């Protein structure tokens, strides 16, 4: 049995791939649900109801999708250039705490129109800086950025925890330590009243479209793609590898930091160590399910948000641990990898 490279990838297959991956993942989760002794289709129905069954749940699903779109974009942009940014989780937290600090310490009383864009930019810059550290280590010391970005996640979250406990502690909050809240004027406006859905959704979708245009129309998009596909040939063709990677890292880290900023400014208004239930890591799955396509990221983020919000709802009415969502998401990643493989290779006896 051999694998033979396909000549061209039928377009249908390219669109079907994420769907096949998701179905395979859901099938596997179906097995796990059955193992828990619960009726499988009822469980899935409850997940769907949990995600879209009411106005509230639908807006919750959309709200949950927003940070996933941003971390998904962060991962997709980086992976396309073969920059393995696994640090989105930490970059998110750094973006979040920066927004809290800047708003409460420097921008008290500043009107929304100014404060919101400034804070978003600050959050992005903070995330950017965090990723530039592992990038520098890669360029200067040839250190693989996978491990350094991963390890920095722990450092970043501890750092944020420290700030929340000390200088940025909210003295008015009881119980769990939380940061000083951002100013009221910094909160992102809601899209729908009586829901948590905020304009971060529009920001994320707009950014996805912008990134798509950059990747397909600009010199930078062409060069970063070349750098990811074949760095040796890219260098021969004069692509400035170092500079290109720095720019890619800035955008990727910026998006992850932005995810943190948007989550704080859009939802709770303050930072705790529980701010992110793994958005950074889920962003990687989002990016892979989207096949690194920015527009696909929007859809993939919606799928993953559906799983998480839906599983929450389902677990309230059935005896199945919410972790089923995490398992489904993780197995989507693995099945997507296999599915991508079979769009590129066929089996020959």
């Amino acid at each position, binding site marked *: 049995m051999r694998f033979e490279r396909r000549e*061209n990838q039928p377009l249908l297959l390219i669109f079907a791939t994420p769907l096949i991956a998701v179905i395979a993942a859901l099938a596997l989760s179906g097995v796990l649900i059955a193992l828990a002794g619960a009726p499988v289709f009822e469980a899935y129905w409850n997940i769907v109801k949990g995600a879209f069954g009411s106005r509230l749940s639908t807006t919750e699903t959309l709200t949950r999708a927003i940070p996933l779109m941003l971390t998904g974009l962060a991962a997709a942009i980086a992976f396309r250039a073969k920059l393995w940014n696994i640090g989105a989780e930490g970059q998110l937290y750094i973006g979040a705490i920066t927004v809290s600090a800047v708003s409460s310490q420097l921008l008290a009383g500043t009107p929304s129109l100014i404060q919101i864009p400034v804070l978003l930019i600050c959050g992005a810059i903070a995330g950017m800086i965090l990723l530039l550290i592992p990038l520098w280590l890669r360029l200067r010391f040839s250190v693989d950025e996978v491990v350094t970005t991963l390890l920095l996640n722990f450092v970043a979250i501890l750092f944020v925890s420290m700030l929340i406990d000390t200088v940025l502690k909210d003295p008015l909050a009881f119980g769990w330590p939380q940061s000083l809240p951002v100013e009221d004027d910094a909160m992102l406006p809601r899209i729908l009243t009586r829901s948590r859905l905020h304009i971060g959704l529009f920001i994320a979708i707009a950014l996805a479209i912008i990134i798509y245009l950059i990747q397909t129309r*600009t*010199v930078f998009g*062409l*060069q970063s793609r070349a750098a990811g596909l074949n760095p*040796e040939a890219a260098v*021969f*063709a004069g*692509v400035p590898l170092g500079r290109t990677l720095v720019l890619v890292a800035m955008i990727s880290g910026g998006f992850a930091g932005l995810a943190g900023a948007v989550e704080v400014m859009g939802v709770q208004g303050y930072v705790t160590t529980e701010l992110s239930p793994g958005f950074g890591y889920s962003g990687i799955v989002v990016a892979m399910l989207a096949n690194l396509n920015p527009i696909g990221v929007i859809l993939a983020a919606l799928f993953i948000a559906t799983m998480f919000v839906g599983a929450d709802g389902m677990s309230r009415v059935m005896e199945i641990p919410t972790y089923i969502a995490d398992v489904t998401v993780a197995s989507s990643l693995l099945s997507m990898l296999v599915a991508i493989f079979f769009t590129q290779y066929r089996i020959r006896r």
Partner: protein
Amino acid sequence: MVGREVKRPVREASQPGEIILSAENVSVQQGGVDRLKAVDFHVREGEVLGIIGVSGNGQATLAQLLSGTAKRADGAITLFGEEVGDLSVPEIVDRGIGRIPEDRNHEGVIGEMAIWENAVLERIPEFSKNGLVDRSAGVKFADDVISAFDVRGATPTKRIRLLSGGNMQKLILGRNLLNQPRLLLAAQPARGLDEGAVAAVHERILNARKNGTGVILISEDLDEVLALADRIQAIVGGRLSPSVDAEDANARKMGLMMSGEWADQEVRDEV
């Protein structure tokens, strides 16, 4: 083997013009080791300088030096009459220098990218404005290269890895030669190609020479060098032999040159 009769093209007599590129006493270090040691060479308009040598004697480094991917440790390089420092790849391409890399698959093309993207990547400033890629100009350029250089089985938007080795090489040649470069660096241009493709590549190189392009041909293939070059230097242990004119060169003499018989004892011991 190719299905039709193939004859390798023959070099005509020519009158070389001015010196385009000359290198004096140039040394290059890589990985802490001297790969090129005090080499001297020059090439004129309309002539082919052949560098012959067994693989592992510094050819790759010489190609990298001239391609802009390796830096000089010592010596002087004069280009179009002016001494130059280390030039980056875009600067080299901008000055009208074409480069055919040794390894077309790993260095020459990006397999998953379209043919037109591969055609324009190294000269992207010509095909972009304000940072935006001019796709239609790029596709047209690729079309021109495909027809002028007889690249079979190619359309500009097709993935380049689907081309055969010979056609890929023709594209690489074409993207460099279509706009008449002043200098062409060709490293192992016919490696791994079938007879028909080899003849095509040789014909293009001789054509360029006829049009006044100076060509530096780095090759392991003695027959190729003897057929195409006006002057030949052997590369041995990172050093270049004195230049031998085509009339005086033959297989036996070049074989001796390749084993270093022109150098003093110290160098020969190194080899």
